[in-house]
């Protein structure tokens, strides 16, 4: 294509639909296909794994083996639509919506604490909507925190006033994040709070805030963990989980049961796995919560090292593309959002897979794109939409 015709096309005011789609600045041409492909592939694998894990769980499926499969596919479709909507809206336009989103988020997480909320597996983190659907507001709160902090931290820098966010702004943004985190902590949904803390760290890192803030936050996190431990804020089951993590042989029928069975499932998969739907641990339902938090064990057992490693590689692709988006973003706002999402995905994936492999303590966190669960699915797809939106606004040369 010659420079002439290129330029001519670019400045042609009226273009056909095909022309629009093929244009250099079109959505399709500017889209990060690798990022989208990886997310879609993970969702596809997740669909198969969720089906394998649930088709025999009659006490959950009410006798319909496709119960979870259909709901999972619907969730994925809604998630995809939300991503498309986010792209259409653009991340910049969402800046204005932050106060509203923040209000809704705080309201919802607070609602969970009221009788509206439901306790699932020890965490009082859900609002049941009926029809087998429920809402986990903390998932959306993660996005709100990213957007809000990004908006606050980038405002003066993107306006060209400053090179780095000043201390006041940083403090304000931290205050912004801490309120919903504290409420989630009260649920108690410790896993989500940890993810949010890592998101805050990632956001501060990317914002260019002074090293003192970053190091201070890490110190505060460590101190907070010790304080939480010492003050006995944790429930006994949470303490037990840490104990079981430290010593997996402890009480294999009780606290250590989850991790033991998870490891047996994964370990027995070997190189190529037992084949989809062929896993005896999965079919035998030895691993609890296998369609949600422990979905990775299905991959480990039935798809083997090859399949499980593929999931890790695909997650890696998403994070690599996320970092690339952050680097290439036209403004600090986009950079911070992308970095926040990468930190979020990275920690949540590491914690989720790590606990099934026995290198992290058990915490109730879903594996992005793969685990069953509407709220999580919506949230991660919205995040993909945000990354794509930022990516499309990158300079032509990038």
């Amino acid at each position: 294509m010659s420079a002439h015709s290129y330029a001519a096309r670019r400045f042609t005011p009226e273009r056909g639909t095909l022309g629009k789609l093929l244009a250099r600045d079109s959505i399709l041409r500017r889209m990060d296909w690798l990022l989208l492909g990886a997310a879609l592939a993970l969702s596809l694998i997740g669909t198969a794994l969720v089906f394998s894990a649930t088709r025999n769980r009659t006490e959950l499926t009410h006798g319909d083996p496709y119960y979870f499969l259909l709901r999972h596919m619907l969730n994925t479709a809604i998630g995809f639509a939300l991503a498309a909507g986010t792209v259409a809206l653009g991340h910049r336009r969402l800046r204005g919506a932050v106060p509203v989103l923040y209000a809704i988020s705080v309201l919802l997480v607070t609602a969970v604490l009221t009788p509206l909320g439901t306790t699932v597996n020890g965490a009082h983190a859900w609002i049941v909507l009926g029809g087998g659907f429920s809402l986990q507001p903390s998932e959306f709160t993660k996005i709100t925190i990213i957007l809000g902090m990004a908006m606050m931290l980038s405002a003066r820098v993107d306006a060209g006033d400053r090179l780095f966010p000043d201390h006041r702004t940083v403090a304000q943004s931290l205050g912004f994040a801490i309120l919903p985190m504290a409420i989630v902590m009260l649920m108690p949904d410790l896993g989500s709070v940890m993810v949010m803390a890592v998101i805050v760290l990632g956001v501060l890192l990317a914002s260019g805030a002074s090293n003192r803030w970053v190091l201070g936050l890490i110190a505060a996190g460590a101190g907070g963990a010790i304080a939480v431990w010492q003050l006995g804020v944790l429930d006994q089951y949470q303490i037990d989980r840490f104990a079981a993590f430290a010593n997996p042989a402890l009480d294999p029928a009780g606290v250590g049961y989850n991790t033991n069975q998870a490891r047996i499932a994964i370990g027995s998969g070997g190189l190529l796995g037992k084949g989809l739907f062929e896993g005896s641990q999965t079919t035998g339902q030895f691993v609890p919560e296998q369609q949600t938090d422990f979905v990775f064990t299905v991959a480990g057992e039935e798809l083997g090292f090859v399949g499980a490693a593929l999931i890790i590689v695909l997650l890696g692709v998403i994070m690599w593309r996320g970092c690339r988006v952050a680097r290439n973003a036209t403004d600090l706002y986009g950079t911070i959002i992308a970095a926040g999402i990468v930190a979020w995905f990275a920690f949540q994936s590491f914690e989720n897979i790590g606990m099934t492999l026995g290198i992290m303590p058990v915490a109730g966190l879903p594996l992005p794109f793969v685990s069953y669960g509407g709220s999580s699915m919506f949230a991660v797809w919205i995040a993909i939409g945000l990354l794509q939106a930022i990516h499309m606004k990158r300079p032509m040369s990038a």
Partner: protein
Amino acid sequence: MSNIPETGRTPRVTIRLVVLQILVLSLLFTLGGRLWFLQIRNGSEYTAQANSNNVQEVVAPAVRGSILDDKGVALADNETRLVVSASRTDLLKQKDDGKTVLTRLAGVLHMKPEEVLGKVRLCDSQTPKPCWNGSPYQPIPITDEATTQQALQIMERREDFPGITAEPTAVRRYTAPFGSNTSQVLGYLSPVTDDELTAAEKKGRSLLRSDQIGRSGLERTYDSELRGKAGVTRYEVDNLGRVIGKAGETAAEPGSHLVTSIDARVQRVAEKELDEAMKVARKTFDKVTGSLYKADSGAVVVMDVHTGQVIAMASAPTYDPNVWVGGISGKDYAKLTGKKSNFPLLNRAIQGQSAPGSTFKAISTSAAVKAGYDINGRYPCPSSMTIGGRVFNNFEGESAGSITLAHALEISCDTVFYGLSYDQWLKDGGTKPKKHPKDWFYKTAKEYGLGSLTGIDLPSEVTGRIPDRQWKRDYYEANKNYWCKVAKSDKQDYASQIARENCVDGYVMRAGDSVNYAIGQGDTLVTPIQMANIYSAISNGGTLYQPTIGKAIISADGKKVTRIKPKVNGKAPATKNTLKYINEALEGVVTHGTAAWRFGGWPQDKIPLHAKTGTAEVAGKQTTSWFTTYSKDYAIVMTISQGGTGSGGSGPAVRKIYEAMYGVQKDGAIDNKKALLPHPLSKLPKIDADGTIKITKAAWADAPQGPAVPQDTVLAAAALPPDRTGYLLPGRRYRS
């Protein structure tokens, strides 16, 4: 604005983004490494764990094969009984170790609470019977005679009876067809012990905790054939122990049936006649001791001379083999094994040994011929002989002048054999034996199989004893210290004098030893099965068989038939000519010899019988009655301890067994229709594919069908409880 790049990133942010990316990717690498460690490096370990996690084995015991007689009548089979058993593991979980439950159970079963409690305690050195000597993890049978009502009571009120089950179970049954008992031959079963389980595991054989093992008799010898193979269904189960699929199945292989050469009817007659003979003996006056004969024990063997197969084998005293079924009670056990019991568990046909008396003379005759004495020569039979300063009398002190060996056998002249044996002893050097003495009398006895096992297919056979020079030496070595200690005393009694002699040269074979030996007295010991074997060989022309009771192993569906072929142990140490000579002489015993008075009116022309009587003296006891006989097909040997003379004590009994087998009537006529077994049966009973055993109908007799057609085996298999798959693992809880 110039230092703010178009991308909105300062170098600090760029560096931090690189740090973030490195951090993120290293986290993922960590996961990948750990994944490799779990799945590839330690994969096999977890695979094993996964397999044990979700496979539960359900074992269906195999139905034990029946033991059949030669016509297919079951001597041992199985029946379905309602067995109430207690699980020790479950009982121990209860507050009072299950005492309340067991007491309640005793009430339902109409048993004494102590009896029930006794049955579930584990045997050890301090625990008196009853106690459980099986595995503590196996349900312990309390009773196998529960009524349907009792079983229902227990199973419907399960909450009142935790750890107690009542299930139909195949239980061994000794059917005692026609009133035959065959107890010592059949043997018995008892639960497998932990040691046996471990031993079996090492050998790679599979034994189940619930298995019963043959402890004696045929049940022990043919245990592995009879037991069959338990079926194992491997179920894949889920975390709650619910079955989600089958991982594999090996069907139970029912045990094979053992067809024996025992004929239940002949066995019945043999048992009855042995018992009768002993009863009669107990009413007979013994002139020597001046009291009635004690007749404390006895045995009879009926053997097919052409094969060495045992057609009947009885031992007295006897017992009911069914006492073992479902665990033996303490009282019964004491009755069978206590000091006062006279040990009915012993099979005296193979485990009872005593001096053979004059029945040994057939062997001495062979020995004399081998030693070179003229078979047609005449030998002096004085009323007594003085040998080595001792006087040896002829039995009952008669003199017969110079007689043939045949005549010596017929009238059982002792002094003929004294003379021959003494002559041989002198030729071998007397008290100063040659370096290589010929020892014809000892060698010949050994070649007939005395002093060693016949190898019959029953456990715990004994060898008997031929007191040859080696034995004398061994005996001396074992006893010389004692003898020499006694010799030092000043006592002048007989025992001390003997001890004094023995202390000096007790290892020397003396003239008296050899003389006594030749007529089957002294230190010689034989078993009835050995004698039956020897006289069978004389009958069949010289072949010594390895006696057998098992005739064939037939698979439960009748498809696989493995005959147990008679094995030849050796040749009788006698030429055809010698055997013919002895054969004729032994017929003479029946027609006009020592047994003639017992065989008046016997159709000898149609069924020629041959016999040798024996009356063995035992120090401090009454004489042992021996009667060894044979026809052209059968050898029958009977012995009664403290039972009188050979012909007197055992003669009528043996005759009656022949009469029953050949159908000989009181008037001497032969009624083939009433004959139980006029000739040995080589045909095997047929077993149909459905497991039904067809009783061979004897062509010569319209004998009524036996009452115990062992179809119960099939029924029992069908009545076994369905696979027990209801065991649940404790539920798992998970909190997120």
